[in-house]
């Protein structure tokens, strides 16, 4: 079973040999299927992203989305309410600020969302917005 599908087998010994293109060194040739439950779960739910995550404590958000101490110049206070999945989608895809937030502040939040990692509040929501289907 595992030998099927590789056009080399048998054909290699035939008179006309199969061509194998080696491709560029940097080209990726192995893609692993990842679980997609977050994407699909997000598509059946409304989700929200608290900024910052409650577990991060009382911190401000810098323009690049990183967390900084309150009062850091150029940083923005926590979002007054969680950003909904729909708002996050509009913000990330077309730069549209959620209601009640100004442009620079919203961009800092957008960068925060882009930096979310697994295990952080809001990550499954962010992941659910990612996968084009």
């Amino acid at each position: 079973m595992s030998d099927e599908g590789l056009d080399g087998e048998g054909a290699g010994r035939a008179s006309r040999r199969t061509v194998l293109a080696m491709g560029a060194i940097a080209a990726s040739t192995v893609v692993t299927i990842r679980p997609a439950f977050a994407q699909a779960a997000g598509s059946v739910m409304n989700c929200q992203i608290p900024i910052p995550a409650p577990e991060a404590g009382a911190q401000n958000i810098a323009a690049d989305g990183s967390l900084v101490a309150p009062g850091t110049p150029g940083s923005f206070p926590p979002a007054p309410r969680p950003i909904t999945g729909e708002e996050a989608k509009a913000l990330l895809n077309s730069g549209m600020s959620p209601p009640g937030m100004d442009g620079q502040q919203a961009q800092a939040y957008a960068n925060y969302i882009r930096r979310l990692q697994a295990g952080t509040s809001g990550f499954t929501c962010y992941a659910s917005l990612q996968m084009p289907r």
Partner: protein
Amino acid sequence: MSARSLVQVLSGGVLPHEATGWNALIAVARAELLLGSLAFRLEGAAVPAKVAAIFADARAQADQGHVAALWEAEMARRALAAVDCPVILLKGTAYAAAGLQAGMGRSIGDLDILVPRDRLDEVEAALLRADWEWVKPDPYDDAYYRRWMHELPPLIHKARDRMIDVHHTILPLTARVKPDSGGLIADSIALGNGLRILSREDMIVHAAAHLLADGDLAGGLRNLWDIHCLRAEFGSEAGSSLRLQARADRHGLGSQVARAIRLSDQLYGAGTEWLNSADPLVVRRLLARDGWAREIRPATRLGFYVRSHWLRMPPAMLARHLWAKARR
């Protein structure tokens, strides 16, 4: 009280005889992460067809979960091969790898491994080279973990999205008892695939430590089921309970192990052991779920939350830790 019904069915008691009872049993088993264990325990029993289908799904899910968990252990082994230190599997992965009854149907989340403390830096570097990364770069957490905990801050694998907890002992350094971590490693057992597991006694000691000294009792029913299964499997060997108690004493965990054994007997075994005065409160907390799997008695839970923290670290640090948490 439906958690009680789960415990009774797991220990061989009568099965529910109507739908309400089954619905409650299944919901509570899911909430306590014991549905897979329950499904294996009742494999072949006369249950309604719908229940049999749910159990078959649960067994298949547990089996596939074990494939993924054992694979994660194998990938950790490959990543750490160059470090050349003993790598000891803990908890669910260890039970599954060793084919123990405690592993039957058990859900397995993160990969937990134990390595010698003086090799921790090399282990960390090797994992980072093999595409594990820090879960959260929070300076407080990081400093806290490194200084006080019994493990590295959790790492997650970039491609496989699975977490690894790298332990160097089985209790936080802040706990008043100091387990003999050298003994844990010296007496560990090779599995023949390049990985190791704790000795039988240490496995039970670790499960007990995890239950009573290192948590707020959340997930305690599963933890006690682990202990019950481990003892049932190991206990037939003459003198084992004496050996177990001696081993527990050596780690400074004699009373925790004794209590875990009392509780597991009370819940899953003959139930004849005399209960210490604090035990009923623990049992009450462990069984605090109704037929909709809702957590009941929040006051009890809150009490235990504080208590578990008190056991984790000396009081002055407790205050600091709570204060840092409260600011979040």
